[in-house]
């Protein structure tokens, strides 16, 4: 039993290191950044005033603006939800991998009951999560000790512990949901459902005042249950943590029992549209067809979000136009965006979609990269198709899938603009192309590294590009880091196409990364041994 738990630790070691860096490192660095960027009482007062005057449309994805004038309060407001999402995504991936992963049949053959195996692995992963959350607490406490400059900046042990506990129970709740679903629906479907509940819940709570439908959903999510627990802002609502804790424990219990009682590998069939097979004519067509469902899924998601953003942008812009003080406040935080126009406000919101578009690239390129690991590449390269030809044609198929995804996202934005009564629909639709360019660029980098080294690395590399870009884009302006640091993020060079301001340099870089990446991957695969 201990061995099984240790195996869970061993399997999770990379995630553990990544999470430690992401959570503990991010908390510590951001605390330091806030202290340096807002070193005076006046600056803090100003930022707190800005935070509290922003409307829910602008702050929906952040936490409640409480105690923003303190170092911890600012971090809690701006980055608290990000920290939870990072921890919860890891928990979802790790727990579904345990309950529905590939090594399951071998593991289930060891002389332990399935219940004990599930308990041991789940317990092992909960242990990993505990270490990570404890490290986040330590990062917060240490950040408070090192960087506190103004009254109220100190972060007590209780506040730091409150942060770790919050991250822990939230990750447990969403991970528990994925774990409960995994024996029934398999790894991918359950991870998707839990991910949708995670992000959907955040959106529902953040924008509940804008829509009765969201207001009805909001109380069902752990985000709402712990809404008043703002540990780094000094507001601790320990009792509220009991609900996600209870939900997590119950759901994990359901997962363990389902794993113990159900047939291994048996899945509840979900209704799905069986599309006629296509893409049998060649490598480009096959790659496109294989990636098509992923492209449609991501494109539809981006399209729905784009629809909502575009549909609300017109009315939000009108609000800003009618309230110069609010517009002024907003423009101080986002100096590069003219929020008094629908296009300008949409541009600001579309920045949120880059990270999603980037993860779409990760999904697409991971599927492409699976060819080598699964042994499919060996079959394909025994046909009269050259290695370079295989990567080039595969790259065409991959970029075709990115085009489908972008077209769907653009359709959503266009429909939203129409619904909002916009007079210029073409501009936002065309502007959505930057999402596709960013996706293609990330995919290109993945293909390049996958072709040169090993195809299975493509997804990881693309993911690293996306996460680094996101973090730089998130942290560099907020911490007033030098321009060249922010300039490292590709998304900083894509202009504001929603208002017709295209940045040719960024567009060129994206095209070069996409096409050049495929060419580099083709050259790389031609010069190395296949691995399997």
């Amino acid at each position, binding site marked *: 039993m201990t061995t099984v738990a240790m195996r869970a630790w061993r399997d999770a070691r990379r995630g553990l290191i990544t999470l430690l860096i992401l959570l503990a490192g991010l908390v510590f660095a951001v605390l330091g950044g806030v202290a340096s960027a807002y070193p005076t009482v006046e600056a803090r007062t100003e930022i707190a005033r800005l935070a509290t005057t922003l409307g829910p449309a602008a702050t929906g994805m952040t936490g409640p603006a409480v105690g923003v004038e303190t170092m911890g309060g600012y971090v809690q407001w701006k980055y608290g939800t990000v920290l939870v999402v990072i921890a919860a995504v890891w928990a979802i991936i790790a727990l579904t991998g345990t309950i529905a992963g590939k090594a399951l049949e071998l593991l289930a053959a060891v002389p332990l009951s399935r219940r004990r195996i599930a308990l041991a692995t789940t317990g092992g992963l909960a242990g990993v999560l505990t270490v990570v959350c404890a490290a986040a607490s330590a990062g917060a406490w240490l950040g408070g000790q090192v960087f506190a400059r103004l009254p109220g900046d100190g972060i007590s042990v209780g506040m730091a512990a409150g942060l770790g506990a919050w991250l822990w129970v939230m990750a447990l709740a969403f991970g528990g949901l994925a774990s409960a679903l995994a024996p029934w629906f398999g790894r991918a479907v359950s991870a998707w459902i839990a991910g949708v509940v995670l992000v959907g819940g955040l959106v529902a709570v953040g924008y509940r005042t804008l829509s009765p439908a969201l207001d009805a959903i909001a109380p069902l999510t752990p985000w709402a249950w712990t809404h008043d627990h703002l540990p780094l802002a000094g507001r601790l609502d320990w009792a509220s943590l009991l609900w996600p804790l209870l939900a997590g424990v119950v759901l994990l219990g359901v997962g363990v029992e389902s794993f113990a009682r159900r047939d291994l590998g048996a899945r509840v069939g979900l209704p799905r549209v069986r599309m006629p*097979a296509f893409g049998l004519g060649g490598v480009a067509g096959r790659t496109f067809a294989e990636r098509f469902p992923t492209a449609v899924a991501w494109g539809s998601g981006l399209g729905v979000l784009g629809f909502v953003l575009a549909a609300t942008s017109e009315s939000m812009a009108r609000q800003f136009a009618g309230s110069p003080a609010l517009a002024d406040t907003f423009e101080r935080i986002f100096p590069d965006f003219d929020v008094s126009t629908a296009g300008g406000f949409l541009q600001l919101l579309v920045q949120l979609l880059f990270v999603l578009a980037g993860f779409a690239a990760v999904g697409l390129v991971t599927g492409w990269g699976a060819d080598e690991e699964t042994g499919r590449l*060996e079959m394909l390269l025994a046909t009269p198709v050259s290695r370079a030809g295989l990567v080039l044609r595969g790259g065409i198929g991959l970029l075709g899938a990115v085009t489908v995804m972008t077209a769907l996202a653009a359709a959503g934005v266009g429909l939203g603009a129409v619904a909002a009564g916009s007079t210029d629909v073409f501009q936002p639709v065309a502007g959505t192309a930057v999402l596709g360019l960013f996706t293609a660029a990330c995919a290109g980098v993945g293909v390049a590294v996958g072709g040169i080294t090993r195809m299975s690395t493509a997804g990881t590399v693309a993911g690293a590009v996306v996460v680094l870009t996101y973090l730089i884009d998130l942290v560099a302006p907020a911490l007033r880091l030098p321009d060249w640091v922010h300039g490292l993020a590709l998304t900083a060079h894509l202009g504001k196409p929603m208002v017709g301001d295209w940045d040719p340099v960024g567009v060129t870089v994206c095209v070069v990364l996409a096409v050049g990446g495929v060419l580099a991957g083709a050259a790389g695969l031609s010069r190395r041994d296949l691995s399997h």
Partner: protein
Amino acid sequence: MIIETERLTKRYGTRRGIDEVTLAVAPGEIHGFLGPNGAGKTTTIRTLLGHLRPTSGTARVFGLDAHADPVAIHRRLGYLPGEFGLYDRLTGAQTADYFARLHGGVDTAYRDALIARLGIDPGRRFRELSKGNKQKIGLLIAFQHRPGLLILDEPTSGLDPLVQQEFQALLREARDEGRTVFLSSHVLSEVEAVCDRVTLIRDGRIVRTGKVAELRDLAHHQVLLRFADTVPVEAFQGLPGVSDVEVVDHTLRMRVSGPMTPVVRAAAGYELLDFESREPGLEETFLRAYETAS
């Protein structure tokens, strides 16, 4: 020669792959490539296909350098890897169709016949198939364009005995049509049943190449005789085919090549309590071959 390697060596860093492998496969023969797991069979095959670059030495297939011009070789080749994956969402028929288009020149009537003979359900998706049925799809892809050379790595893995027989019939038909088969296996009986010539590989080195009959000569039995009393060793040492006789108390161990009759007759002269005859494993046969070679 259809396949010809000359001191072909592949190293993975400091790890051994194959070492100075020299072999020749003639047109129209079924050539067995025998060796235990990890001997270097798959490395040799993947180097022949151009999937791995040789560290040194040469590999030629159809007279073409395997590394310099793999596409020209693949045009005339059918290949089944030891382990492979295909498209989970495609049915067997769709998968075969896709590879047929990549290869070109597939006779659909022949393909349909293969589907029937191998007992393939062409309408089922690849992910729904058992290991053996996936292997059949792999065989279909390798055979369907009637390649001049078939390179098959452990092709009967997971196949039931009836399909194995059909597979062997397909190999003989290919040979009768003048095509060449290079068959990697660690199953002696399979190689004995269909191959004309055999190459043995062990620890990355070729141990022996010869006709199957020569391989049979390598085969021997380990015999154990337990008697009620002590028996003279000399009574067995000189018998035809008997070697390595050892005695422990009342028990004799020996290696017997060829007919068992002389041993049985000699043993009948004493009070025999137990008689045990065991066919050697492949590893022992290789060891024997290795000893013979060295």
